[in-house]
């Protein structure tokens, strides 16, 4: 399965400044969203993991979208990510 991960609001700075990541899990058909997040923390994010994950979920202030809609509409972190899903992580902005 292939998953597209989108990062915005500055989160891309934690991930090599890349806003779009293609992740492939050749041995899986689906993956719990929580596992994807921990996979990202352990494999894509090199340092300062606490800016992305706190208590085994995304830290407060990050909005997660599943195919362009709020993850809360799909069960939040309990969602099972499927082939070709796009998961977006948006750090909310506060400046003005």
């Amino acid at each position, binding site marked *: 399965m292939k998953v597209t991960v989108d990062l*915005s*609001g*500055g989160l891309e700075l934690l991930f090599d400044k890349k*806003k779009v990541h293609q992740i492939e899990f050749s041995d899986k058909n689906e993956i719990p969203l929580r596992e994807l997040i921990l996979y990202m923390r352990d494999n894509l994010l090199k340092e300062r993991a*606490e*800016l992305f994950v*706190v208590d085994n979920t995304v*830290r*407060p*202030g*990050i*909005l997660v*979208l599943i195919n*362009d*809609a*709020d993850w*809360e*509409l799909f069960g939040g972190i309990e969602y099972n990510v499927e082939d070709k899903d796009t998961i*977006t992580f*948006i*750090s*909310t*902005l*506060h*400046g*003005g």
Partner: protein
Amino acid sequence: MSAVYIKDHSLNSNEIERYSRQLITPDIGVQGQMKLCASRVLVVGAGGLGCPVALYLATAGVSVLGIVDYDTVEISNLHRQIGHQESSTGVPKAVSLANTIKSINSLVTVNTYETTFTSETAMDIIKNYDIVVDASDNVATRYLINDACVLSKKPLVSGSALKWEGQVTVYNYENGPCYRCIFPTPPPVDTVTKCSDGGVLGPIVGVIGSLQALETIKIITNNKEGVLSGRLLIYDGMSAVFRTVRIRGRQPHCSVCGDNPTVTQLIDYTEFCRSNYSEAAGKVDDRV
């Protein structure tokens, strides 16, 4: 009195002349212009977002515009804050922006509040307005504005910007979600980048502030379908791509707008967020 022709609107000839190109716009019309000319909007923040928001709302003809800002104009503001002038350096931003507005549209009443928006001042200021625009620059103020809007039952047009990016949505509108429904817990202080650290471009706040003004106009003119409630607009200026995404509705368990709220009056948001009502100041801890 003696006129045979009874006009079906309350606009005077100055207003008709000034707003002619706007009141012929579909879904505004004379009725929409009358609503605009009777509306009262509070803009919190007279900075990068507040300038275009206040300018476009004032030129559109809102009746009363309130502007809250404790800060004064500095030269380093002028690259993005187009409602201030060099000659206003040192002048309170609320006053400077109000003066600019009066020179463009003298029909608008502008109230200035040269104060920090706090738990003590917020409710008293907000009660005089129909709609609140969040053009602030820090986390604590954003939670404060949200709760004050929920407690006083006013819709909130929220915008934010940093570097090349921006976000816009409308909270607490027609039973839609509030800020806490989406973000129940404030972000860790270390994860918040300020414009003074990360920078921000003028056209980015120009786009976001203009979008906030338009959402406010839609709310005033009762164009309910179009209002960005339950949706979030995400803007990436570098790639020139916008996305309008669906977000959750009002959450029954929300601590302020839910069915059994635990927040029933304003709290200390600097403590809740561990940061100050000001971008310039650092964390609460730093004040010691």
